[in-house]
């Protein structure tokens, strides 16, 4: 499916913010010079065709009171699979990547509070093959919003 000029303006608008009102797609339609039904049916088609990874709400986890950390582990190469699988079992571990270098397993941890983070990291630190752990906290997020402008 080729994207039309209309599709591209629709997707660019949708990558910004959906209006917070009773009929948001009618408000978007007005901006695009079309009607509500066209916007909704075209969005359903674009979604079915796989152009949209997700339509929804993206939260700022810190402001919901969650604690976030990037954790780097130095793992003995022969234990990397068991350690990676053990990390994956925690719902609080949202991203987990094996990477090149001394620190070879990198994951992000998001917990309700710092206490839970400490407990989980203590468990992971005790896994066989884990030789070192870095806890890397962020204070300033300079760029986090992934947008691809379609021309």
């Amino acid at each position, binding site marked *: 499916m080729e994207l039309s000029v209309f599709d591209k303006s629709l*997707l660019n608008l949708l*990558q910004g*913010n*959906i209006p917070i*009102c*009773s*009929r948001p*797609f009618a408000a978007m339609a007005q901006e695009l010079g079309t009607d509500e039904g066209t916007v*909704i049916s075209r*969005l*359903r088609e674009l979604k079915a065709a*796989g*152009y*949209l*990874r*997700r*339509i*929804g*709400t*993206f*939260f*700022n*986890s810190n*402001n*919901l*009171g*969650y604690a976030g950390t990037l954790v*780097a582990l130095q793992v003995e190469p022969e234990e990397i699979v068991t350690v*990676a699988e053990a*990390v*994956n079992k925690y719902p609080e*571990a*949202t*991203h*987990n*990547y*094996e*990477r*090149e270098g001394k*620190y*070879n*397993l*990198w*994951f992000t941890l998001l917990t309700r509070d*710092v206490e839970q983070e400490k407990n989980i990291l203590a468990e992971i630190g005790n896994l066989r093959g884990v030789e070192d752990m*870095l*806890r*890397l*906290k*962020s*204070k*300033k*997020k*300079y*760029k*986090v*919003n*992934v947008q*691809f402008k*379609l021309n």
Partner: protein
Amino acid sequence: MCSSNLTKRDEEIIRALQEEFPLCEEPYKVLAERAGVSEEEFLSRVKEFVAEKKIRKLGAVLRHREVGFKFNALCAWEVPAERLDDVAKIMSAHPAVSHCYDRNTAPNWNYNLYTMIHAHTREECDAIVGELSRLTGIQSRQVLYSKKEWKKTCMKYF
């Protein structure tokens, strides 16, 4: 750690919001019903969440399959503290950089700025790292190429 001051009702609203956004005429009404509150209360609470920066964005993320970036690397940079904001601003402006944030250092780990770089090939990724280095004058870095993605999920809150 800032306190979030969320009530049980707020948590219900957040739970409803983190599901896929309904594509219908009155999407917020559908979500409000799931949260067990009126549409009016739901809308006013969502506006407050945006104002309080609890919500970063309510919209779409496109699949960047058509853009074709297959290669990604996390690059950790060692930046003098007084240049952090300035260097981060330059790196963030680069179109190949999707994420840029600071992190604390650790013993034997002096890197304090991280960029996620997207490219088509490893060579292209190296070239972008070189370009960021030239643009900012920051030499000391670790390019952490991903070998395997073990997990990539969206957080479920509450």
